[in-house]
Every structure is written in structure tokens, then in C-alpha cells.
């Protein structure tokens, strides 16, 4: 007989094991979906998860997609650890890209070493400004940050649309919805000849290191952890709750803004309508899959980045609709949340007596 018993303490081993289990279950369920759709499951999974990263170019594409996911997820982990539900990173990314793109356009016919740092900084500030809206409304007007940050995603995309169609559109661009090309000094340098991976990856890695340090070596990290466990305890301990809410939103806005910078100053080098394939939303999954741990997030961003590439490859080679990528992402999160059950409960096998 099997009995379900509540654990006295969440199991630490299982804490890090469940993401692996979730990925495995997603593969099984994914194979099943492919089978239902009339594809050979193993072949489809191969095209989805192995073929895209089998060569040098594919691996570079993987890192290219993982970079914004990792960066945003690191930022979000500050929010989620302290119980702030910022789900509008996509908007912060877009607004960061708008601000940094605007600055880059100011310098469009200039070259100089000083341009890129200004452009990058502008992106971070743009993201912070945009994230400060839900943060301030939450702290001073008691407004639900989930809904506000989400509504702002739609607004930011419309602002971008207005700019690239209207005032910022390329005067020599035959009315295409895009801006001028940025000057070379405003672009993040590519790391290898012929590959699209660019210096933005260093921004992500820096964020990983800094966040690890803040989480585990500073008083702020401790405060965030306590507030995440229990807001009452945090209040009792006298933490300045409002300040922290604004701070974590600013950090996560800056990270999303930087991801936006990477998207427009990397291989593309201009602003256009679709700068992000929902990286801001997908990064929420990355943050959870990585267990809000900086190192975990690196691995998680690589895994989830494959779903983007796999969806493209599977569409080209097997005519599998590209939205399977999103389905996989949704499933990963479902299975991850579901397997968290094992954190708090265990199955006890009770030998039946005869």
C-alpha cells in the first residue's frame, strides 16, 4: 500500500532534482503530442532538441537565444524571491530597446568608443523607468503589480510600433516599419566571424555573478529571502518593505532593458516591430526552472532556448507548427510545478501484512 505523507521539511535533494524530472516529463508528453499529430515521436524530438544544436552555427544560435532569457530571468529572480510578481518583463525589454535605440539613432552617423556604453546604459535606464511604474503603483497606491506590469507590455509594443512606423522610421526606408541602421560604434561586437553570437552574453554572465553575490553574500539578499518566506516576519524584523519592492523591480527592469539592448544592437542593428519573440514571458519559466538560482538559471535558459530553435527546425524539416515551442514551454512549467509536490510530500510504502 502506498500512503502520501507530508514531509517535515522540504527536501533539498528533490529541490534540484525536480527541474530535471520536469524536463524529462515534458519530453515524454511532447513525444505523445507529436504522435497524436501524426509524426514519428523520436524523429520529431530529434529534430526539436538535437539537430538544431548539432553544429557550430546552431550552438551559437543557442547562446544567442539563451542570452536574453538568462539576463531577464536573473532580474526576475530578484522579484520572485521577494514575492513580487513582475510579469511584464517583455514590456521592460521593449521599452529598454526603445530608449537605447533612440539614443543609438542620435549617433547614427558618428563613430566613437563612447557610443556603445551610452547606448547600453540607456537601455538599462529605459527598462528601469518602465519597471518603476508597477513598483511605484504597488507601493504607494496598493495596485496589483501583476495586472499593471502586464498591461504595460501591450502599451510598450504599441509605442514601439508608433515610433518605427512614424517619427523614427528610416527616411530612405521605402516606408518599411523599421529605423535607420545604427552606426557600427553603437553595435555590440560579434564574437566570431560568421556567427551571430555577440558580446551581449557577457552582460548576462556579469548579471549571473552579481546576482549570486547579492543573493548569498549580502544583507539585501537575506532580506529578500525572508520577505519571500513571510512578509509578516519581514515587517517584524523592521525591513523597509517599500524600498525593497522598488529596488527589485528596478533591478529586474534593468536586466530586461539590457536584454532589449542586446536584441537591437546585436545582429539586427536597428529598431523594428518585432524585437522579441516573447523572451520576457518565457524568461518567467526560465527563472522557475532554474529555481531562482543564478547557476540554475544558466542551465534553464539553455534548455528553454532549445525550444525556440527546435520549433524553427521542426517547422522547416517536418512541417511541425512552430507554436509547438510555446506548448513545450507551457508544459515545462506545468510539470515543474506539479513535481514540486514531491518537495512537500512523500510516498510511503507500507508493506501489507498477510
Amino acid at each position, binding site marked *: 500500500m502506498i500512503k502520501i505523507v*507530508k514531509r517535515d521539511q522540504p527536501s533539498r535533494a528533490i529541490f534540484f532534482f525536480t527541474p530535471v524530472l520536469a524536463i524529462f516529463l515534458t519530453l515524454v508528453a511532447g513525444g505523445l503530442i507529436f504522435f497524436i499529430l501524426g509524426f514519428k515521436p523520436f524523429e520529431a524530438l530529434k529534430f526539436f532538441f538535437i539537430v538544431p544544436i548539432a553544429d557550430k552555427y546552431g550552438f551559437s544560435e543557442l547562446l544567442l537565444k539563451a542570452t536574453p532569457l538568462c539576463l531577464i530571468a536573473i532580474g526576475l529572480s530578484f522579484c520572485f524571491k521577494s514575492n513580487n*510578481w513582475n*510579469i511584464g518583463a517583455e514590456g521592460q525589454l521593449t521599452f529598454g530597446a526603445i530608449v537605447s535605440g533612440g539614443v543609438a539613432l542620435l549617433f547614427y552617423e558618428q563613430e566613437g568608443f563612447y557610443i556603445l556604453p551610452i547606448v547600453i546604459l540607456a537601455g538599462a535606464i529605459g527598462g528601469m523607468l518602465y519597471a518603476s511604474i508597477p513598483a511605484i*503603483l504597488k507601493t504607494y*497606491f*496598493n*495596485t*496589483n503589480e*501583476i*495586472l*499593471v506590469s*502586464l*498591461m*504595460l507590455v*501591450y*502599451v510598450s509594443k*504599441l*509605442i514601439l*510600433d*508608433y515610433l518605427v*512606423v*512614424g517619427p523614427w522610421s528610416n527616411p530612405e526606408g521605402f516606408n518599411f516599419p523599421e529605423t535607420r541602421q545604427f552606426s557600427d560604434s553603437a553595435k555590440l561586437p560579434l564574437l566570431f566571424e560568421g556567427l551571430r553570437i555577440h558580446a551581449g552574453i557577457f552582460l548576462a554572465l556579469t548579471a549571473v555573478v552579481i546576482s549570486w553575490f547579492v543573493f548569498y553574500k549580502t544583507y539585501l539578499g537575506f532580506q529578500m529571502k525572508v520577505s519571500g518566506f513571510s512578509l509578516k516576519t519581514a515587517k517584524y524584523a523592521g525591513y523597509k518593505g517599500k524600498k525593497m519592492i522598488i529596488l527589485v523591480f528596478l533591478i529586474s527592469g534593468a536586466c530586461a532593458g539590457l536584454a532589449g539592448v542586446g536584441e537591437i544592437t546585436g545582429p539586427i542593428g536597428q529598431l523594428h516591430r518585432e524585437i522579441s519573440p516573447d523572451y520576457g*514571458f*518565457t524568461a*518567467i*519559466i526560465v527563472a*522557475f526552472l532554474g529555481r531562482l538560482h543564478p547557476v540554475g538559471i544558466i542551465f534553464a535558459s539553455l534548455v528553454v532556448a532549445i525550444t525556440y530553435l527546435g520549433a524553427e527546425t521542426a517547422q522547416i524539416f517536418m512541417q511541425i*507548427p512552430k*507554436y*509547438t*515551442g*510555446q*506548448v*513545450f*514551454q*507551457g*508544459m515545462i*512549467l*506545468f510539470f515543474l*510545478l*506539479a513535481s*514540486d*509536490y514531491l518537495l*512537500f510530500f512523500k510516498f510511503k510504502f507500507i508493506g501489507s501484512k498477510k
Partner: protein
Amino acid sequence: MIIDINFIGLIIASIMASAVPLILASCGELITERSGVLNLGVEGMMIIGAISGFALMTVTGSLIIAIFGAMLAGVLISTIFAFLTQTLITNHVATGLALTIFGIGISAMIGKNFVGIPGKEFPVLFEGFKDTIPLLGPILFGHSIVFYFAFALPFITSYFLKKTKTGLIVRAVGDSPESASNQGINVRLVRYACILYGGAMSGLAGAYLSMIYTPQWIENMTGGRGWIALALVVFSTWNPIKILIGAMIFGGLTIIQFHMQAIGVRIPVQFLTALPYIVTIIVLVVISRDSRKIRLSTPSSLGKSFYKDN
């Protein structure tokens, strides 16, 4: 300039028509939230309803099967949410987000084969009475059955919550699951039922969009309406009648957009499109500013998991 009084009636009717999906989804979510469950997957359930309704209509040719099929699809997809949050005690916010991401993906996957197929005409009721009364004629008559149902729903929901025993149980479970449980109420079962009901209403809201409002399948056609529906529940301070008012305001913003463009007002179209989202934020701020009032009307256990050792 003489403005035809029936024209004003038609504008009001079109505002009401665009309010229908918001009313349906909000009233469903309101019941879910009243039982203490915060389901952020409304957008996902709605889009699943939209594609299911449209696909079933195209494949079977039956409008009735399509409408009920869409509701059933909403129920099925919300079962995942119910199982996770109620049986496996997962976090409501994260699970709801997963539901939305999953729903948008699955709907686009199924919908691939239905892009560009023209919809069917949905029968309207009392068409003949439209011209009998000036102004009121176009408002009252000539709409689909779903339209009339949507405008009755807030009143039914209000009656259900205030006057029926089941409604009382739902409220009790939302306000104090511990005491409800001690009274012998199966909290988990009640919450399951409320989640599935919310799924059905979101599914219906989606079907209204793809079958009646703009009878065709467009990817991501809900365009944030599910999130606005969620905001409406907060706006209403969990009172179904106020959902009606809120939905009309948002419907109005959508319709004004078209007419402003038609008159030739020189405002960028993107600004007008952004208006409903911006107004949602402003309204949320105004409503939530008074934290005491919000705390009094919010179901006390909203978003908190309930686990009983047995």
C-alpha cells in the same frame, strides 16, 4: 448636422457587443475568485475556447456543438489548473501563467489549419423588432443568444452568490476555508467546481469572439481581453453588477477607437489602441488606492492554497 437617433442606438449596441466577452469571462473568474482561487489563465482559456468553437463549427457545421464544445474545452483546460492548484497544491500565480502560455501555443497549433477560413453567420433573435422603437430598438433587439445571456449573467451571478445556499458555500470557502472545512464542506471539491465553471465561461467568451464578434480565426485574437477581464474583477470589487459597468466602459473605449478614426481625428492609431490598457491601469490605481476597502471586499483566502491533513 442631424444625427440619426437610431445611429446612436447602433453605437451603443456595438459597445455592448464588444463588452460581451469581458462580461462572460469576468463573471466566470469572479466565481472562481470568490471561492479563493486566483486563476490568471483567463487569457489562455479564452483563446482555447475561441479556436475550439471555430474549429468545431467548421468541422461539424453545428453552431450548438461548437458553442458547447468551446465551453467544454474551457472546462478541460481549466481542469489542468484545478488539478495542479488543488490536488498538487501549486502556486496559483505561476500555474495560471503556465496555463496562458500553454493555451496560446496550443491554440495556434490547432488553429494553423483554420486561418483564412470564413466564419458562419450566427443567428440573431428578434431581428424584426429592430425598427419598431427608435433608439432602443437596435439596442434591445437583433442580437445573438450569447449576447442576451451575457447581459443576464451578472444578475444571475449576483443572485446566486447572495440568495442561494450554494452561493453561500462558495463565499464561505473563499472567505474562510478552515471554518468551511470544519462545517463539513469539501473545500477542494467546491474550488474544483468553481475553477471549472470559470473555464466554461472563459471558453464561451472566446467562442463569442471567433464565432460571433469577428467570425474568423486569427492567431492571438483575444489580444489581452482575458487580462482585462481579470482587471475587471478587481474593478468590480468582486461585485458582479459592477462588472457590467466596467465592461461597458472598456467596450466603449474599443468602439470609440474605430469612430475616432472614421471621423478623422488626428491621433495616432496606436495611442487609441493603447487606451483600454492605460485606462485599466488608471482605474486599478483609483480602485486600489483605498487599501481598507479593497481588503474588505477581497475574498480573504484569495490565491492561498488550502491543505488539509487527513
